[in-house]
Structure formats: structure tokens, C-alpha cells
């Protein structure tokens, strides 16, 4: 059996002949944007929330990242957040809303609170729920109708997906991080390459990653179309969870730990598809187009689309036009205007530490605006406790308050039309960061390098001038 099979089977309430399975959901996260219509659906049917203690709420998508203590200026956002507060009170759901010390991006707070645990089924009305798979859980995004189903019954109807294994072996080069691994994979198999699959990531390169780096990888599984991604739990996982606010304790911990140790794919299990990647082949990556599959090494040239089937070339051309980039030219040296370090992909404390270690003693380029948006209140507090805020300040980087921010530009944090933004988020779709905004996805380190030089830069060339700080991180 695969790891996925083991968790799936444990959660089947019943199977419909020739139909989907009724899958029991252990943990349900909700936020302000995709939940209001689910609650009004319940109300219409006169239903209670079936298991309120298994749903956890936060406000993240809409919230401002400056002056969070003040009422939200934008009316519709304010109403949506107020609606969430009201719904949570009415139905008895724990809310880590604005002002709470646990507030943050939903996929950052679940893990850091120890709510996300191995072997669970986890859903949220948000496609990047795949993040939680890093703990060896089946975690996937759902639509609002499904949010309503989980609220009402703690179950979903799901067809079993196909399974893919992506094996990454070997050692990563210096300056290459988890973000580069996943951008490399997506560039290889395309933005639709894993549609219909659940992906398990294995191999020595994956094993050697921290939990936060594993989350970065699982987070972007959805960007190649996968339903979700997961990684078998190991000592790194257990070590991370231990002592977190909602982690099991005492005898309960021992019992859970014994169960978690059984969560792995049995040797010689067949997958529907397998992919092998040599970690040494991966270079710092960046995207040049309008879907996450349009990525190249920072040192590479922008392709001309001839590698695609003929009927897809027009869309490819349209993407380059939107981006204002030329096929056949280097992406390195491309002038940029903004750097956004944030999102559920790369706004955890390790990301901030890595950026701070790199920019210590440096300053941003005068033509670039840099926003650092921590993934949660806890990340923010930790960054300040470690003095990272001072490092950012003297580098000219602005440290803001937690939320999704410019990842999707639902609050005021938008990139103006035509401007280039190197972003550590996960989507470079047209208009994602603001109408007409041009997004280049990259790792925190590559983003930090661009912030300093003002152009797309191969971070590896800058290491010679890096101080001790990086070595330690």
C-alpha cells in the first residue's frame, strides 16, 4: 500500500458502487472569502455545524498588512471579516482572527499550532491546502459547496485519485532551495502535468529538508494540477510537532507517535506514474510567463514556445506579451520594481531568517520596493524577537503584518499595472498581484538578491560577498 492508500482507507465511511467514497474529514480550516456562502447554505437548510471543534477559522485573504489594529478601511473586506466573526460565534467555531496572537495565513497557522498532524484528512476552501501534506496527511482544497458539506456532516464525497511518486535524490547545490525544487518539477511536467493525481515526494533530497521546506514543496503541488502532495512523516516531522500548542501530550503523544511511525509507502508498491529527479541538476529557478509551469533557471534564456504543440503557441505568445518579455533573451538582468516575500509558500520563520542572513549589511536597490509579509503573528513575533526586523529595516525592506497580501492582491497590497515583481508566492497568473501586474516567481533567496541588485540575479554569484550570517543559517 502507498502512504496515501493507508490514510485514505482509514477514513472511508462507505463507498458508493460505481461512485465516489464518503471520506471522513479530521480537520477543516476556514477563512473569510470562501466560507460565507457555505454558512448561508446551512442557514437555508436549517442545519447546525456537525462537529464545530474540528473546524478552525482565521482571517487572512482580505486583511490589511498595515495598521491591523484599526478597522478595515475597505468596506466589502470589513464586512466579509465581520461575517466570519459572526458565523464562528454563532456556530461555536474557534477563530484566530485579526488581533489574535495566532492569526495568520491558514496554511501557516495549522502546522505551527500543531493542529496539522500525520495521518489526518485535512480540507479547506483553498487550493493550497496541499501544504499540510508535508506532515504525511491527505490534505486538499475544496469549493464552497464542499465547505458546506464538511460543516454539515464532516464528510465529503471523493473519487480516489491516481497516484504519482516524485523521487528527488542527491544533494542540492548552494543557493538552491525547496522552492527551486518545486519550480523545477513544475517546469518539467507543466502546470497540468499532475492533474488527477495525488503526489508523494520521496528521495534523499526530500528527506534532508526541514518541515518548512517540505511545506513549500507540498504547497505548490496544486500548481502542476495535483489534488495534493504528501511526504511520509519521519523524525524531522515528529520533532517539529512536539510541544506545539495543539500537539498531543503525555501518553497520548506516545500512542500517536506509534501510529505515525507506520505511515509510509510499503516498499515495491506501484504508483500510476513515477518521476525521478537528480537534485544536482536543479538550479535557482524563476518564472517568465503567466502560469507556474513557465519557469527556467535564472541563468537560462526565455524560450520561444517552439517546444509546445502548435495549437498552444498562441497562448504562449500572449503570455510573453503580457509579461513584456522577449523570447530568446536572458531573464537575468531583467529590471524589476517590486519584491514580495510572503504567502503560504514562503513566509515562515526559516524563509525570513534566510533572507535576513543574506541582506545583513546590504541595502535594497533604490528603484525597488520590498515588502516582507510574515505568514502569521507567531512568525512576526519570532522575527522581531530575533532582531530580523532591524536587519530588514536597515536594508530598506518593509516588514508588514501577517496575511495573504500581494499573493492575490485582495487587500491594498497590489503591484501596479506593468510593473515587475519578484515574488515568493505561488501563482504568476495574469492580474494575480494586481491588474496588469507582472509576476516572476522565485525562492526567497533569489527574491532577496533581486531586491539588492534591482534586477533578476543569480544569487550564487553574490555569495562571495556574503558575510558569516549566511553560513550559519
Amino acid at each position, binding site marked *: 500500500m502507498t502512504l496515501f492508500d493507508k490514510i485514505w482507507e482509514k477514513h472511508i465511511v462507505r463507498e458508493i458502487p460505481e461512485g465516489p467514497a464518503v471520506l471522513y474529514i479530521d480537520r477543516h480550516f476556514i477563512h473569510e472569502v*470562501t466560507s460565507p456562502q457555505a454558512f448561508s447554505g446551512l442557514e437555508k437548510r436549517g442545519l447546525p455545524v456537525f462537529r464545530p471543534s474540528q473546524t478552525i477559522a482565521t482571517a487572512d485573504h482580505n486583511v490589511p498588512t498595515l495598521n491591523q489594529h484599526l478597522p478595515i478601511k475597505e468596506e466589502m473586506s470589513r464586512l466579509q471579516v465581520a461575517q466570519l466573526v459572526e458565523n464562528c460565534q454563532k456556530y461555536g467555531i474557534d477563530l484566530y482572527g485579526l488581533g489574535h496572537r495566532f492569526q495568520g495565513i491558514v496554511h501557516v497557522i495549522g502546522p505551527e499550532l500543531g493542529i496539522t498532524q500525520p495521518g489526518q484528512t485535512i480540507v479547506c476552501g483553498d487550493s493550497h491546502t496541499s501544504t499540510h501534506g508535508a506532515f504525511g496527511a491527505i490534505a486538499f482544497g475544496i469549493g464552497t*459547496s464542499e465547505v458546506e*458539506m464538511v460543516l454539515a456532516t464532516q464528510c465529503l464525497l471523493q473519487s480516489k485519485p491516481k497516484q504519482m511518486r516524485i523521487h528527488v535524490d542527491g544533494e542540492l547545490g548552494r543557493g538552491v532551495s525547496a522552492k527551486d525544487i518545486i519550480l523545477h518539477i513544475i517546469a518539467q511536467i507543466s502546470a*497540468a502535468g499532475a492533474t488527477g493525481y495525488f503526489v508523494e515526494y520521496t528521495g534523499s533530497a526530500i528527506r534532508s529538508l526541514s518541515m518548512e521546506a517540505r511545506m513549500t514543496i507540498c504547497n505548490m503541488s496544486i500548481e502542476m494540477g495535483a489534488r495534493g502532495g504528501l511526504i511520509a512523516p519521519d523524525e524531522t516531522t515528529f520533532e517539529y510537532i512536539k510541544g506545539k500548542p495543539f500537539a498531543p501530550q503525555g501518553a497520548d503523544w506516545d500512542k500517536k507517535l506509534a501510529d505515525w511511525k507506520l505511515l509510509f509507502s510499503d516498499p515495491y508498491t506501484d504508483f500510476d506514474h513515477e518521476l525521478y529527479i537528480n537534485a544536482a541538476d536543479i538550479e535557482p529557478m524563476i518564472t517568465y510567463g503567466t*502560469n507556474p509551469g513557465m519557469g527556467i533557471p535564472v541563468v537560462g534564456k526565455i524560450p520561444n514556445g517552439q517546444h509546445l504543440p502548435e495549437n498552444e503557441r*498562441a497562448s504562449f505568445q500572449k503570455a510573453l506579451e503580457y509579461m513584456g518579455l522577449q523570447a530568446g533573451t536572458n531573464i537575468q538582468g531583467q529590471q524589476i520594481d517590486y519584491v514580495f516575500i510572503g504567502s503560504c509558500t514562503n513566509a515562515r520563520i526559516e524563509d525570513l531568517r534566510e533572507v535576513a542572513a543574506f541582506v545583513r549589511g546590504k541595502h535594497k536597490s533604490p528603484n525597488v520596493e520590498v515588502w516582507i509579509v510574515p505568514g502569521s503573528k507567531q512568525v512576526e513575533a519570532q522575527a522581531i524577537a530575533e532582531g530580523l526586523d532591524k536587519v530588514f529595516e536597515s536594508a530598506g525592506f518593509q516588514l508588514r503584518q501577517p496575511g495573504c497580501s500581494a499573493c492575490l492582491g485582495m487587500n491594498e497590497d497590489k503591484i501596479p499595472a506593468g510593473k515587475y515583481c519578484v515574488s515568493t508566492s505561488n*501563482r504568476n497568473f*495574469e492580474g494575480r498581484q494586481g491588474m496588469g501586474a507582472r509576476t516572476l516567481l522565485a525562492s526567497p533567496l533569489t527574491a532577496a538578491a533581486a531586491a539588492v541588485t534591482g534586477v533578476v540575479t543569480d544569487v550564487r554569484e553574490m555569495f562571495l560577498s556574503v558575510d558569516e550570517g549566511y553560513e550559519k543559517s
Partner: protein
Amino acid sequence: MSKKIKSFSTTAVPLDAENVDTDQIIPARFLKATSREGFGKNLFRDWRFQDGDEAKPKPGFVLNEPAFQGKVLVAGKNFGCGSSREHAAWALKDYGFDAVVSSFFADIFKNNALNNFLLPVQVSDGFLQKTMSAVQENPATKIAIDLENQTITVAGASEHFDINAYKKTCLLNGYDDLDYLLSIREDIEKFEKG
């Protein structure tokens, strides 16, 4: 929202683009509503209008071409990728579409569409290309979709499409998943007790 889908025949709107993500179908800034209605007017908002201004329709975008009308949207492969926002399905349905034809749908979008009685019809690459050109060349081309027999017919050519048997029953009868889940609440409680 009209529930139940049977057979229908209609003209179609050809959207010749691959990887149409849900951020294009409905941009994030329109997700602030707390009801399900009214998203149709913002469907493909930034492809439809210059500077987001309703007074400035972009010429050349297919929804702005009066020649193309109908209840079916024909689109390139990997339709509905990206964000899980169900608002995308609501916007398409609210605008007046009952089906989307593509060679490939993103998973979450497909579920969302089915939950809203918007039929995702997945056809072969070849059939999609033929359909796309037939509609582009002659906007009066009819697309006939027969859910019961799972066939789609365009300009005399037919193809079978797949749909989960359970889902098909739901669509034909106007049931949704929640009706079913509520009916087995006792099983769920039993499962919880282990």
C-alpha cells in the same frame, strides 16, 4: 440556480486559450460578496474590459462579439486551474452557461462545476479542435449534449464523454452531494465511534 440537466442543443462561445485559470474567470477583487448571486457580470472581467471599466469592452474578446452566443463555452485544455474559488463556477453559471467543453479540466474546478449543475464535458484533443474551429467559422453551429447517453454532437460528429455514474444520477435528478451525506448521518456517527 437551475437544477437538473438533461439533453440540450445550443450555439456556443469559443474561448481559444489554454490553462484558463480561475483568477481570469473571476478576479480576486470580486470575491468579497457573501452571497452566490451576481458573479456573471464580472466573468472574465479583465479580459472583457479595458482597465476594468465596463464602459470600455475590449474588442476581439469573444464575450464581446455579438455573433457568439449560447449556453456552452468551448475552451482550451486545463480549464479552471489555479484557485479553488467556487465563484468561478457561479460566474459561468450566472452568466448563462450550462456546460463547458474542454479536453482537460482542473480537478477542483470540475467538482465545483458539478456541484453547481454546470456540466464539464471532457472531449479528446481532436474533437475539441474540430469543435473550436466549427464554432469559430460558423457561430450558428449547434452543439448537442445528451447527458443520459453521454454524447456530444457537433456538425455531424459525435463523441462519448465520461462522467461518474453517481454524479450523472445527481445531475439528471437534481440531487446534490449534501442531500446524500445528510441521509447517511447515522453511518457517519457510527464511523466516528470506530
